[in-house]
């Protein structure tokens, strides 16, 4: 993790945010992220993010579940301990469908959630820098990383012109670390209604 300089612009309306994202990208600034209080449809496309392949991971985990269930049950009933249940066949595939299905769903769901937490660095006790406390309330917070060529004051004015209701420059640590929110994050005060 390294300390970097960011210019932060806060927007309170999607209608203003979308053209601003386009403008920032056209101007060639390095868009670090946009933090939103809810999923804004189309914003990922506007930011030029590629589609997630999380569902592929889910599919693979599901297949692992299916294979585990079928191979394990057939091994138990045909090789390890074949029990004669009323003369019924040992390899009773139809009777294994329920457990195979349940294990498929279980593996897919658990695997996907763990993958999601891993790639998004989500876990208890994880601490990240929050550029604005209202990013989870009602503001769309656009964060632009400053490179050696960036003139941050010019960029700040650029964001203001694009419709940001609030903008500032922050020098903060990027990424995540183990930490406590009550130590590093300021306690909330009611926003002043304009």
């Amino acid at each position, binding site marked *: 993790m390294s300390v970097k300089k960011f210019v932060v612009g806060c927007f309170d309306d*999607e*209608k203003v945010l*979308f053209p601003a*994202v*386009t403008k920032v990208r056209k101007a060639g600034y390095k868009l670090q*992220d*946009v*933090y*939103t*209080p*809810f*999923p*804004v449809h*189309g914003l*990922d*496309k506007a930011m030029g*993010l590629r589609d*997630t392949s*999380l*569902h592929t991971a*889910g599919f693979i985990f599901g297949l692992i579940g299916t294979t585990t269930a079928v191979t394990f*049950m057939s091994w*138990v009933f045909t090789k*390890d*301990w074949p029990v004669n*249940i009323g003369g*019924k066949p040992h390899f009773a595939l139809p009777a*294994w469908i*329920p*457990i195979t*299905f*349940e*294990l498929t*769903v*279980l593996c*897919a*769901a*658990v695997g*996907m*959630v763990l993958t*999601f937490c891993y790639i*998004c*660095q*989500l*876990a*208890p*006790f*994880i*601490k990240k820098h929050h550029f604005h*406390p209202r*990013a*989870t*309330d009602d503001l769309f917070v656009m964060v632009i990383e400053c490179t050696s060529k960036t003139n941050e004051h010019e960029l700040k004015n650029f964001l203001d012109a694009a419709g940001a209701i609030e903008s500032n420059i922050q020098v903060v640590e990027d990424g*995540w670390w183990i930490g406590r*929110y*009550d130590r590093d*994050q300021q*306690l*909330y005060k009611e*926003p002043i209604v304009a």
Partner: protein
Amino acid sequence: MSLTKYESQLREPLVDGKKTYHDVTVDIVHTIEAKPTRLWYIGFYVAVALLLFGVFSVYMEVVYGIGQWNVNRTIGWGWDITNFVWWVGIGHAGTLISAILLLFRQGWRTGVNRAAEAMTIFAVMCAGQFPIFHMGRVWMAFFTMPYPNTRGPLWPNFNSPLMWDVFAISTYFTVSLLFWYSGLIPDLATVRDRAKTKLRKYLYGIAAFGWTGSTKHWQRHESLSLVLAGLSTPLVLSVHTIVSFDFATSVVPGWHTTIFPPYFVAGAIFSGFAMVQTLMLIMRKVMGLQDYITLGHIEAMNKVIVLTGSIVGCAYLTELFMAWYSMVPYEQAAFFKFRIAGPYGWSYWLMMTCNVISPQLFWFRKLRRNIAFTFIMSIVVNIGMWFERFVIIVTSLYRDYLPSSWSPYYRPTIWEVGFYLGTFGLFFTCFFLFAKYFPVIAIAEIKAVLKTSGESYKDEMAPLEVMSTEKFAHEMLHHDEHHREGDVHVVHHDKH
């Protein structure tokens, strides 16, 4: 303004009152931040008292054995399995609302899905207690798990429906919990970022997993929710199907029918929605959430109740018809001598009245939108659905093949009743804690539909309603071209 985002004014707003995003946050989070009301404390203590009584009842059963219950050689499954099926059924509505209605793009689910999912988890927790303690030697419960053991290893019988149940219920619980919690993470972050005390900041900071609201994370979160919904949909159908297999794969007259899986699933959704109604009607009143759980939501759920109630009614009649049509004397005896008549006939007719006849009143729009009536009906339906399981279990078992093993009249003991009451205690203790410490409405999801289905947005639709079709089509076309130029897909509402 894209064509797909046009919302008819005939459709009721999903969120009443002209709310901003911040209003939504405040409305939902204030119940966590405020001190609990006196009503909350009373309810919570009653629930804890019931829970303690339940714990004592279970203690009696574990220490002195199953003989503490009045289940006997013929009626091996009495109140306990009735309660098990009843609680599992209740759980189904939560998954239906959160998963199936998500796939069907039903916007109204956002108001009720969080609480309904919580209800699912607590109901499944309650349900699980019954088969576990019905084992008698509950300390041997882990024998159902397939692990390499010193007995051979001797594996559980994977061909048994009771074994399928173990897998189905535990998978259902796990997946529901993951689905619920992954949806909660962003909302817990909202609570964290608003925390005014250090302790709250610390605890919600842990619970929110360090959620920031990054667009990439939201994109993955959406994908996760969609796939989990896609997985939960067949899962929820499979769970009650497997529960019905406990009965349907047996050779007991009255149980051995192929109609059981769809009939059980419809019944589960029916009773689950009734429980959601009971909880929501109280919750919206006590917590002042009338703007989010509107009459429109209540009406929508009542429509599901009348649909599933009618399916259940059809199934009851089909069973009777098939028993007569099959010409099997045992089947006919089970239904016509021991079920609709006989010493337990009253329970059959109580079930019929509560489940089939009374929900038909919901065909009237006035009654669907009447809160008091809905509340009474939700209780009636749940009583009816409990008796459905009681009828299926007890009336199929009390006359065995040999008259010598015919059962005396089955009445539960105080410890059987106590166990049931105890699960109510568990359920409501959990629900009260949930209502106090978690956002009971999915904040982020409400915000996502606010601009399309909120009341203020509906008003913006008024000029569109009077616009001519040609002009509307022209603007749509023009707007789409504009989109392609900018390489941005935006939903603008600024054309009018």
